Every structure is written in C-alpha cells, then in structure tokens.
C-alpha cells in the first residue's frame, strides 16, 4: 500500500524565448493588433505616399474650399485651393519623423538621468531629481514655444524643443526601476563578483528595467506627435514643410465655410495617436510580467 503519486498541480509552461511569449500575449489583445495594422499603414503612407501621390501640398491646384469628393479631390481643397490629401500624406512624414526623433531623444535623456540617479543614489540622485523637478515646473508647451521662437523653427530645433521638455516621466520610471532592481540578488551577486559599474548599469540592470521604459517610450511617440501638432497649430513650424497641425492652424479661420479642412487633419492625428496608445497598451500587457501571470 503506497501513497498515490503526487499529481502536478498545473502543467508547467515550457520555457520559450521571451519575445515569442510577449508576442503571444500581444496577439491576444485584439484592439492592439488592429491598432498595429493601422499604424503600419500610416507609417507606410508616410514613407512611400509622397512617391505615389505626387501632388505638391503647397501647389494651388484648384478653386479654394472645394469639398471632399467633388472635382476629383478626394479630401477637397483648402482656403488657398491646395490639395488636402496631399497635405495629409506629406504631413504624415513630419508628424511621425518628429514624433519618433523627439521620443528617442527624451528616452535617451530620461534613461540616462534616471539610471544615474537610481544607480548611484546619494548626491547624484539628489541633484538629478532636482533637475527633473525643475523641468516639471516649466509648462512644457510654453517652454518649447520659447525655444522655437528664440532659436528658429527648423525641424531639428522643433524636435529638440519637444525632446528637452518630455523626458521627466522616463527619468522617474527608470529611476524607480533601478532603485528596485539594484537591490535584487542577482545584481548583488554580480557586484560581489566584481562587475564594473558600467557593466552593472547597462548590461545587468538596464535590460531588466526595459519593459516599462519601452511602454513609456511608445506612449512618448504619441504625445510627441500631439506636441508637434500643437506647435504647428500655433504656427511654430518650418514654413517650408507641411504638417497636420499646421493645416488645422492655417485653416481654422474658415471653419464656417469649410469645417472639413480642420476635421480631416484632426482625425489623422487622432487615429495615429490612438493607434500608438493602443499598441502601447498591448505592449504593457505583453511585457508586464505581473499581468502575464494572471
């Protein structure tokens, strides 16, 4: 008479590559999958659209305020008779380019500041966090407006102006992740086995801190696009390049005659940012190990 063998409580999932696992989780989020498809289409339009739809968005091609679908212009013309569809396609480039570049910049600054503060603690942390607080006190849009107004509205300057005001959230997240991870056993073990600070910070801690940073970075792209739209709506944009916000800004006096000149570019911004934020949500579900175990 022997005890029956212990039944395993649950089948253990076979170990897989973490990316495969994250992708699996991501695919289960239908909204995020749809958003990813939409986003891919938008990016493809931004890259290849101008080669296929060759109308110059600055050319006056037809009578002003020709409504969408009439006279062969799918989205109509604006107050100067410029093709709105051309503006949208060319504008996508600027929006996405600036969105990506500014987000990249703010992630770079944010991760550097957050990592140094969270890793070294002490006065380094004190100083860096004060600097972070200082940047949180400056109203972001006003500060960027000032930078662009004083130093010129070129695309690199606009990118810089957005990036320099948007990094504080990344810095805070990175710091708190570093504070948490630096106390974990494997970090202590690496430290004990003589790993250098640089190795510890970037090879050991940073990869483990990445998931929330990646999610935040995705959301940053969305808010940078909104930010750029706001600036160009106010006219703070490179006058030689068309962008979505600028189309809205320049047409807004005429909303009584032709509201579509404002609504349509707005929808473009809205859908792009919405898609990014849904993908961000999906990434959050996919990368957040706590959620994954539910």
């Amino acid at each position, binding site marked *: 008479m022997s005890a029956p063998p212990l039944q395993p409580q649950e089948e253990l999932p076979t170990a897989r590559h973490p990316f495969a696992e994250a992708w699996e989780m991501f695919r289960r989020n239908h909204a995020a999958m749809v958003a990813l498809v939409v986003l891919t289409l938008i990016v493809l339009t931004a890259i290849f659209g101008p080669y296929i739809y060759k109308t110059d968005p600055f050319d006056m091609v037809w009578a002003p305020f020709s409504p969408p679908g009439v006279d062969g212009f799918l989205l109509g013309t604006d107050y100067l008779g410029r093709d709105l569809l051309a503006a949208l396609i060319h504008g996508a480039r600027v929006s996405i380019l600036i969105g990506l570049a500014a987000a990249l910049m703010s992630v770079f600054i944010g991760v550097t500041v957050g990592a140094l503060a969270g890793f070294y603690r002490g006065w380094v942390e004190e100083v860096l966090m004060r600097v972070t607080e200082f940047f*949180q006190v*400056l109203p972001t849009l006003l500060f960027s*407006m000032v930078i662009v107004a*004083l130093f010129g509205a070129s695309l690199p300057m606009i990118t810089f102006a957005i990036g320099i005001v948007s990094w504080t959230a990344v810095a805070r997240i990175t710091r708190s992740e570093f504070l948490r991870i630096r106390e974990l056993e494997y970090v202590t073990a690496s430290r004990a086995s003589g790993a250098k600070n640089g190795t510890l910070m970037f090879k050991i801690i940073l990869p483990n801190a990445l998931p929330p940073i990646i999610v935040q970075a995705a959301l940053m792209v969305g808010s940078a696009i909104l930010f750029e739209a706001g600036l160009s*709506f106010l006219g*703070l944009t490179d006058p030689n390049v068309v962008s979505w916000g600028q189309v809205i800004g320049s047409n807004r006096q005429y909303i009584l005659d032709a*509201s579509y000149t404002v609504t349509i570019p707005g929808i473009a911004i809205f859908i792009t*940012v919405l898609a990014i*934020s849904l993908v961000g949500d999906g990434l959050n579900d996919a990368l957040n190990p706590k959620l994954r175990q539910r």
Partner: protein
Amino acid sequence: MRILYAAILLLAVLVLNFSMMHLAPGDVADTISQSMGGADQELLDQIRADYGLDQPFLVQLGRYIGNVLQFDLGFSFFYNKPVTELILQRLPATLLLVFVAQILALFIGVILGVISARKPNGIASHFVTILALFGYSAPVFWTGILLLIGFSLKIQIFPVAGMRDVTIEGGFWIHFMDIARHMVLPVITLGSIFLALYSRLSRATMMEVLGSDYVRTAKAKGLSEREVVYKHALKNSLSPVITLAGLQFSAVISGAVLVEAVFSWPGLGTLAFQSIIARDTPTILGILFFSALVVIVGNLLTDLALRLVDPRVRSKG
C-alpha cells in the same frame, strides 16, 4: 522649507530664462533698431551700453534677477508697456480657466471613478475607458474647434470667442453669468483631457481600496454601504488622484495655451502666442516665468490638499 525650495526653483527659472535670451540670436538693441527702422553700428553700440548689454554675462544676470525681485520683467517694445503690467492684466483670465478646469476635472473625475469602480461593467466604467482613450489621443485644439463648430456655429448656444461681452451692462451677476457662458466650451475642452486622466486613476485606486482590508473591517462593523464607500473608501482613494493632479499643473497650462488660442481667451496663452509672432522676447520670457510661478503655487496647493486627506503626510511635517 517648501517655500524656500519653491523660491530656489523660481530662481533657476530666471537663470534659464536669461541664458536663453543671451544665447538667442539678436538682442534688445536689434529689436529697438528694428522698431526705429534701422540703425548704424555706432547707435547700436550706444544702445547696448545704455542697456548694459556690453557687461559680462554674470553682471547682466545679476541685474536681471535684481530687477525681477522688484517685479520688473523688462519692457515690451511691441506693446509699449512694462512686461509685468502686461502679464498681470492677462493672468487672471488664465488662472480662472486653469483652476476651474482642474477643479471640475478632479471633482467629476473622482465621482466617475467611484461610480465605475463599484460597477466595473457599468455604463460609467465604459465611459471612463472611452474618455481615457479619447482624452489621450485627440489634440486639444482640435477638440476645441470641433466643439466650437458644434455649439457656437451650428447650434448657437455659446459665444464664439473671448471672455466677456463688452456690450453687456448690469450688476455683478449679469457679468458673472456672461463670463460663465464664455467659459463653458474652453473649460470643457481643457478639462476633458484631465477628466480622462483623473477618472481612470480614480477608478483604479477606488477598485483597489474597495478590496482592502479596512473596507472589509468597515463592512464588518455593520456600516451602511454609503458610509463604507463615501467615508472609508473615498478618502483613501483621493491621495493618488490629488498627487497626479499636482503633477499635471504644467500640462494644464500647456493645454490652456492651445485652448486660449482656439477660443481667443484673453489670457497668458494668447499673449504668448501674439508675442511669439511679434518676436517680443521680454514678454515671452516673462510669461514663462509667471507660468512656472503658477505651477509652483499649484504644487504648494496640492501639498496642502494632500495634508488634508492623509494624516501620514501631515505627520511628516
């Protein structure tokens, strides 16, 4: 202690302001000469000497800070007025917009959060989810224009622009109602973004709090549902939302700049917009300084509010 720290932050804003002005191409002399229709090198040098622009950077900085301490933010050649006076004229309109939008967003956000936390699959909860997506993704100026098209142009309920109707005469209440009518659309536009944020966070914290041990204790005491939710749970769910609201002050002001531009609201945002077009540097920097001041004051108010709801914060002093 807090106030000292706030003062240091403001000082830092001034240093940043001045450095940017210093670094930017063109100076006051150029502006003046432009407004005079050009000047030769001798006159330019004369002006620079008059304004102390030939002095070393630190001396100029010191004088700038000294001036600001005497409420002198420089002179706007565009408006032909001292910057401080210009800003103080416009500040109340912005404060009104910012604080009303913040407070309404907080208040309604918390209520929505409570309702949707109690019924996670109810209408309110779905509304919060949709609002959160919309509030994050829709450009605020676009939302504003859509509301303008809808409720001022198509259906003419609310005024198109401005803060008051100058033709209206009457007592305090008439003016009050007039401003209130002008405020509806701008406040909705600005408030909706933050309403989205606060209601989502409020729902999340409220759900967590409703599952907490002390709420179970409150139920075990035999208290009514109302007391359990509105006395025991609500007060605990407030701190994170208030903290978030405090962090949003700078974002609210940024949003206000755009909303003011859409509705021609006569506040700092419109002033900033106009002075940027006019390249009126002293005014722009003055606005940056004042808006930082508003954020700092907002943060101090947040701290006070936190102390009211959470005794743990209170005891830390």
